[in-house]
């Protein structure tokens, strides 16, 4: 099997001809099993069929996930970062004060977040091995684990050994966005810092999977480049991981570029119709794929995306370091467009006939000793 980078680059470079007349209807009728089918659904020719795509995506999502949406929230442990990503508020070039939470502060955040009902948490940091090293992340995860059912990591990419350490500490999931699958664009928007290493980042989910994490989540930052090719590569990346790790739960996020402290506008904005085309095409191509929509999107849009293929939503989010225990502190990573509380999101989902799933794993995550303690303690 060719390497992942070659596989995706070949797909990205391949010509993308206009689908033959009737092809969109054919894919909708027979299902989207191949890369070519996926290209058809992402093509301009599919745009007039958005309603049919949405109906098919809804039916598939109902079959595989039922009327449920899993809720999660991020916990920011550090905004220190050595990268200078042109689109991000955490860029090392932004002259804002930085902070890394100590372990007691992490515990206070975890306590405040767990009090809202959240049990699936995403531990988030900038990328600075100096300010927030692996050892600190592991210690933070250990402090958090007893209060949660799942701890995901969205931190600087680590080696396989690092993920194994964090898995033992209690982490069970990994989120890492490639941002863009176009290596030239990637180099342009990541001018300096460890993130410049495109292949190392691309292989990160694979390292996490090999370490034994239950779940990996991929993402392309929509708005940076050609969204059709980004969505294509995202889907192929997800399928590549599924092929190699059948037990792995693979998910994606579809973040769109938002205004931030650095102040730039998206170079290639993705509209709502395009977002829905991507979302439904991904669902039709990968029926069991987890799909998350974050509070970067507005409340109204998020409400309408429920039922189109989304399986996870963040709720009650603070995108600031220390934001749960001390609201109002620090600069957020991005502007939140949906400020609703966990209870408000739960109420919205119930009103739409969906069950907000708070827990989807029976133990504190990771370490089997904690699970055994749960058995003894019950």
């Amino acid at each position: 099997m060719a390497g992942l980078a070659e596989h995706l680059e070949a797909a990205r470079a391949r010509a993308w001809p206009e689908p033959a007349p009737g092809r969109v209807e054919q894919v909708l009728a027979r299902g989207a099993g191949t890369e070519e089918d996926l290209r058809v659904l992402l093509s301009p020719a599919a745009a007039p069929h958005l309603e049919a795509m949405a109906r098919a995506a809804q039916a598939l999502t109902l079959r595989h996930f039922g009327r449920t949406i899993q809720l999660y929230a991020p916990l920011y442990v550090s905004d220190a970062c050595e990268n200078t990503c042109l689109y991000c508020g955490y860029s090392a070039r932004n002259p804002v004060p930085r902070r890394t939470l100590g372990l007691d502060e992490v515990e206070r955040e975890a306590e405040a977040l767990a009090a809202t009902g959240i049990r699936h948490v995403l531990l988030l940091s900038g990328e600075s091995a100096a300010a927030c090293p692996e050892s600190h992340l592991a210690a933070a995860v250990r402090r958090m684990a007893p209060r949660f059912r799942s701890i995901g990591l969205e931190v600087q990419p680590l080696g396989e050994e690092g993920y194994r350490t964090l898995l033992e500490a209690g982490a069970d999931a990994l989120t890492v966005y490639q941002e863009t699958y176009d290596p030239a664009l990637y180099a342009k928007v990541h001018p300096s810092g460890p993130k410049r290493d495109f292949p190392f980042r691309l292989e990160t989910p694979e390292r996490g999977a090999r370490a034994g994490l239950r779940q990996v989540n991929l993402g392309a930052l929509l708005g940076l480049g050609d969204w059709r090719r980004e969505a294509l590569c995202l889907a192929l990346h997800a399928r590549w991981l599924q092929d190699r790790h059948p037990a792995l739960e693979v998910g994606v996020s579809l973040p769109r570029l938002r205004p931030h402290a650095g102040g730039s506008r998206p170079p290639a904005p993705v509209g709502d119709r395009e977002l829905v085309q991507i979302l439904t095409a991904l669902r039709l191509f990968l029926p069991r794929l987890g799909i998350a929509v974050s509070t970067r999107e507005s409340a109204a849009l998020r409400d309408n995306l429920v039922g189109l293929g989304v399986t996870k939503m963040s709720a009650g989010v603070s995108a600031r370091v220390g934001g749960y225990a001390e609201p109002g502190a620090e600069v957020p990573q991005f502007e939140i467009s949906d400020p609703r509380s966990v209870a408000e999101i739960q109420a919205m989902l119930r009103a739409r006939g969906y069950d907000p799933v708070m827990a989807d794993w029976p133990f504190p995550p990771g370490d089997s000793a904690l699970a055994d303690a749960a058995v003894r303690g019950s």
Partner: protein
Amino acid sequence: MQDAWIIDGVPVTNRLFLGTGKFGSAALTARVLGAAGTQVTTVALRRVEPGSGGEDLLSALPEGCRVMINTSGARDGEEALRIARLARAAGAGTWIKVEVIPDQRHLLPDNLETLRVTETLVKEGFVVFPYMSPDLAMGRRMAEAGAAAVMPLGAPIGSNRGLRTRELVEIMVREIQAPIVVDAGLGSPSAACECMELGCAAVLVNTAVAVAPDPETLAVAFARAVEAGRLAFRAGLPPVREAEASSPLTGFLGTP
């Protein structure tokens, strides 16, 4: 005429078991179970988390409905064992649907791990219902290990495709010395009825009912279909008439 299946001392007359995983709310789940007169239901322990603002399904279940905790989420036998033990420790009972799924794309079970878990849990005193891909040898081993029933799939989970594994399930019903429950893939009451006509002891349904526009009514339809199929099985179906040979095969023997 009472036609009860005695499971672990409990008489079960409603042979439609309902899963709870995909309903839009705990309240709806409870209404559906109530409407169908459900006596046995499966609940995923991973979804049980009182105090999170989520709904507490276990306390919402109708009176008299027995819970079979399923080990959904387990990727291997070790995780399934741990979930079963936690369920018992948490007071959720000893009836366990063993579900070991190392395949996220199709959600097809791992029969070998499932057998191992079945053997261990039976020894630990659980009432064990292994969910499996239909296979006679494995089913026999699970029955010999002491499974309360063997639960082959009718079609992949959530597919609503009906009893696609009919030939294999039929053989299992005939050959295995334990009740057979078809679990997964049954999309219509007629498919559930078909399983019961074959002699299955029960069927387990979730997706078809949970995502239906009117889950309560569809659950009732399933329950009636299951009852009809069971009655037909007990009554004995007449043989299907085969085409007759045009000239007698034994004519050459002459008249006796």
